């Protein structure tokens, strides 16, 4: 393996294989694969999913890709169109950095609000059968742009989108943050995390008890030099498919909200002075099919 891009595709392949093994099914049992990453033209996924030879949907939702895949797959499985789908998202520090920022060995300094692209991949199998956990509700996000142009402060660029989706969900469902064991945003980092806490408090929702962010959970903020936290498609994908699923297995979680946030800009759009549009997709994961 002589390029970072090949390494990222291999990570996707490994993640899907692990998910298949854990679900005790073969890749031929999948009706479709929903995959996404941060690379141009989504090639990490195309090469990663190539070996499975299954119907393929390439997705781009920046860091929200994993939730986007989960929403599409679960709706299609729920409608009966498909029985089993694989969802996969990945990011690699070395492929993302050279595409969005500077060359890897370039000697620059990062600002405290900048986030670091996680080298990670996560995969879930969405199936019409099995013992759960279950995707109970989904709420696709709309594009929200509050005019933030600083690529080194993506937490602030994406926070309004997360706020928008969260308040819409709570208003429509009549639920409150205390009804959930955990509310997880995708990767807002330190900045976005505190902005959400502030805004939700002003809107009358107390998030402090149950709210965390995948970008803050993936790394140890004290010992690893991550500035504002992790980011990238693989960040929330690996936290959800790894850590959170294990906690469901151990029954320490029973009802969570996962709000994956994405910053939908490109290097060219930023150079042309355009602001960063944000998006936030919500997925509710429960340990029971009938939970209200």
């Amino acid at each position, binding site marked *: 393996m002589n390029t970072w891009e090949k390494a990222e595709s291999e990570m996707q392949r490994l993640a899907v294989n692990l998910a298949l093994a854990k679900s005790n099914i073969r890749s031929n049992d999948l009706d479709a694969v929903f995959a996404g990453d941060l690379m141009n033209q989504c090639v990490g996924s195309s090469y990663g999913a190539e070996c499975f030879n299954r119907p393929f949907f390439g997705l781009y939702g920046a860091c929200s890709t994993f939730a986007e895949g989960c929403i599409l797959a679960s709706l299609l499985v729920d409608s009966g169109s498909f029985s089993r789908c694989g969802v996969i998202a990945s990011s690699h520090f070395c492929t993302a950095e050279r595409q969005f920022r500077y060359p890897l*060995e370039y*000697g620059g300094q990062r600002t405290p609000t900048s986030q670091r692209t996680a080298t990670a991949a996560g995969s879930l199998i969405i199936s019409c059968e099995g013992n759960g956990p279950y995707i109970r509700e989904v709420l696709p996000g709309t594009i929200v742009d*509050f005019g933030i142009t600083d690529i080194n402060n993506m937490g602030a660029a994406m926070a309004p989108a997360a*706020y928008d989706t969260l308040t819409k969900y709570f208003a429509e469902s009549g639920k409150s943050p205390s009804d959930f064991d955990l509310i997880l945003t995708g990767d807002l980092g330190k900045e976005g995390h505190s902005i959400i806490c502030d805004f939700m408090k002003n809107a009358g929702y107390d998030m402090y008890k149950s709210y965390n962010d995948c970008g803050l959970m993936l790394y140890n903020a004290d010992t690893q030099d991550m500035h504002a936290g992790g980011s990238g498609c693989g960040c929330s994908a690996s936290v959800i498919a790894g850590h959170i699923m294990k906690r469901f297995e151990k029954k320490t979680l029973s009802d969570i909200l996962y709000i994956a946030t994405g910053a939908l800009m490109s290097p060219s759009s930023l150079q042309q002075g355009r602001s960063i549009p944000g998006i936030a997709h919500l997925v509710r994961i429960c340990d029971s099919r009938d939970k209200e």
Partner: protein
Amino acid sequence: MKINKQTYQKYAKQRAPSSPLFKDMFFAFLIGGLICAFAEGIYNLYLYLKIDETTVRTLVPVTLVFIATLLTGIGVFDSIAKYAGAGTLVPITGFANAVVAPALDDKSEGLVMGVGAKMFTIAGPVIVYGVIASVIYGVIYWISGVIS
């Protein structure tokens, strides 16, 4: 709660922690100064070795570029630059790093469109505007010579 765009941008800017300026400036001064002192040292060393002064003036930047290139190649430069900031960026070491780093990254895309083209993605603008600025300076210098 309705949020106004302008208010939000101001709020986000205000709450964002700024870079530790004094720490950054201190390390830039310290490491940048060390690089300059080192250059001065090798300047004197070359003179001591009886190399003539015109050659030494070329030899010193060449040595610095070589060291910066080597450190970039073995992956040490960016770890130093993380603390040094402008201290490694402003001397010729920063320029060497800016050329070598993308060349290393893009070698997977071939020698022509990868290494050859991409090595100037950061240094290219510096070369273009540096040359233009030096031409303008030359013209002013020439005119001032004619007048006086």
